């Protein structure tokens, strides 16, 4: 089962290694990992996604807490939550082929953030399936994908009584 661990860690050199090393030691592949500043001073927030049994997930959480630099750990398994990923996709596009890509970008509620004579960069935020949908359609279109950069998942627990997200993308709820 897919587990998403949220960890608040002290913002110090080597923290990432300590956290990642714990997964390595259990021979668990990290699907995605994001780190960035949080609302807490001098603490970073990590989102780690991995495949693990319930027992392994318990052990990961318990072991993460044993790391001195780890302050808080949450395991979001099936709990209500909001997950997003950011993708930058550079596609080959000439003035002839641009319009088709513009349409796709519109449908997917993505944005063009860089436009050059031979290529353009699309920025897209959404759930994993939607980003993969755009990539799939782009690869079937005339434009050739030159580069893909994905942030990995960022997850936040939703309030327990929350029925739907209030974003501009209601269809992305409950992912």
């Amino acid at each position, binding site marked *: 089962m897919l587990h998403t661990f949220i960890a608040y860690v002290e913002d110090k*050199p*080597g923290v990432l290694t*300590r956290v990642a090393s714990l997964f390595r030691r259990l021979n668990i592949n990290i699907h995605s990992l994001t780190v960035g500043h949080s609302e807490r001073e001098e603490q970073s927030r990590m989102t780690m996604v991995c495949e693990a049994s319930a027992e392994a997930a*318990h*052990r990961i959480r*318990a072991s993460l807490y*044993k790391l001195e630099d780890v302050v808080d*750990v949450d395991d979001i398994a099936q709990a209500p939550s909001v997950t997003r990923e950011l993708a930058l996709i550079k596609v080959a596009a000439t003035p002839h082929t641009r319009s088709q890509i513009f349409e796709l970008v519109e449908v997917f509620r993505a944005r063009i953030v860089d436009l050059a004579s031979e290529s353009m960069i699309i920025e897209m935020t959404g759930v994993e399936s939607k980003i993969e949908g755009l990539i799939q359609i782009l690869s079937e279109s005339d434009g050739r994908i030159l580069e893909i950069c994905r942030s990995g998942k960022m997850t936040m627990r939703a309030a327990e009584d929350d029925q739907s997200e209030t974003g501009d993308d209601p269809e992305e709820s409950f992912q």
Partner: protein
Amino acid sequence: MATNANAQASNIDLTTPARLTGAEIMWATLAGEGVTQVFGYPGGAILPVYDALRKFPNIHHTLVRHEQGAAHAADGYSRASGKVGVCIATSGPGATNLVTGIANAMLDSIPMVCITGNVSSKVLGTDAFQEVDITGITLPVTKHNFLITHAEDIAPAIRYAFQIAKSARPGPVLVDITKDAQQATAIFDFEAAKPRPVRLHPMRKVEEADLAKAAELIRNAKRPVILAGHGIIESGAEEAVRTLAERTQIPVALTLLGLGAFPASHPLSLGLMGMHGESWVNHAIQEADLLIACGMRFDDRVTGTTLTYATNAKKIHIEVDPSEINKNINVDIPLTGDLREVLELLLPRIPSHDGAAWLKTINDSKGASAVRDIKNLPDDGHLYAAQVINDIWRITKGNAIVVTDVGQHQMWAAQYYHHEQPRTLITSGGLGTMGFALPAAIGAKTACPEKEVWVIAGDGGFQMTSSELCTIAQEKIKINIAIINNGFLGMVRQWQEFFYDRNYEATPLLSPDFVKLAAAHGIEGVAVHTRAEVASAIEQARSAPGAFLLNFMVEQEDSVYPMIPVGSALHEMIRRPGRSPLVQSPEDE
């Protein structure tokens, strides 16, 4: 305040902040933490620290012959005294030589602070001479580690290291200090360097409902067994466990590292469980309807295959480390917290109980085991390790600190030296580190100079760290050394005999004349060949003023019985054949 008095004797006052070098700060912080003994080996990147040592006359430094010895000595010091052991090494090879000893302490949850020097911060990461990324290397084998590049960070890091090493489930912490940080100066303020309060593991919890359920299980159990582990000693829960056992008449089986946590002579003591535990101990566990695991982790050497482990038993697991819950064996009631504290919550709910029927069942199951016991066999002209260790136990009246190496002799020591007190068996359990005994005994004797200390080692493991004989000579330490010399790497040979068609590849072992080796270090010794000589040789060693080495030339192809092969169930053991003390063929009864 003993710690303040100690530091003041070193002319450095802990109460008034003062400007010191990083090296001085390191020693002053150690003194403030109550350290009076360190084990180490100098080198380039730690020289400023050694240069400052003379300003701290209350700290004794023992020079080992290899840094692994320093780590094991600090480990043995900690196990014997309950204090935090401290070892010091230089950068590069000095630091990497510590690693085995650090891993050993990690697996056995021994509180240690390891200090290494490193190259100057200006050249960190440049492959400078004797530079190694020791914080990277030791990351998986320490509770935590620090890379310190500024003098002002030394005191907080060391104080924090002591707190981490001692708190919750203890373990080793490494503090790597660059040379420029040792040389620079900073204001030393011991009080200000105090770490934040210990952050309790948030998953540590003892639910009221679980306590009630545990108490009910204990009250209603017909065939309960207490599994007594190392956590009893770390938590200081010996009395609480004894109260629980006596009040409910529940028998107590012990892990290797638990030996001594419950008196061997106690009528409720079953003895060692697991791979080389006696048959009635393992049968009792397999037939139990309730296991109360106290400060143990269901190690594979204790459970055999987990598929058939005590399948009819409910399991209560009292353990300080939440990551151990359901790791190896799924339990019914986890009580995650300090063992002594949990037992103090549990005991008021447990009434007296009569366990006579269950104890009689266990006692009856001993059957022919005593007859098989090798120490009960008539003298057939051969010398057996079990007899030697039994005699050491008898003559020392079970009062010695026994420090073992790893292998057959270790298991025989666990079976035949009966420990009444905690911290009297010092042995490498989790990592199984050959070469542990001699340096660990140096640490143990240094911690407890008034105690009689015996090394029991094999001829293989002894040679791994025998250079520490000279440390014993230089320090004038009185240790008695019993080498169980069978000319083989005995435990490996035993496995080859049982599981590899007696293909004794790379296990026959040539050894130096250990008595002459001892003599070369100015240490007395004798070789012992027959059973008749054993007792007088042991007495001779004990009465000698200095260290003494006994080279027991024992039967070469003896094996440790019973034995549960890896992957077998706890009750499927290979037994010592009844008809002969020597194995003709392994039998699985």
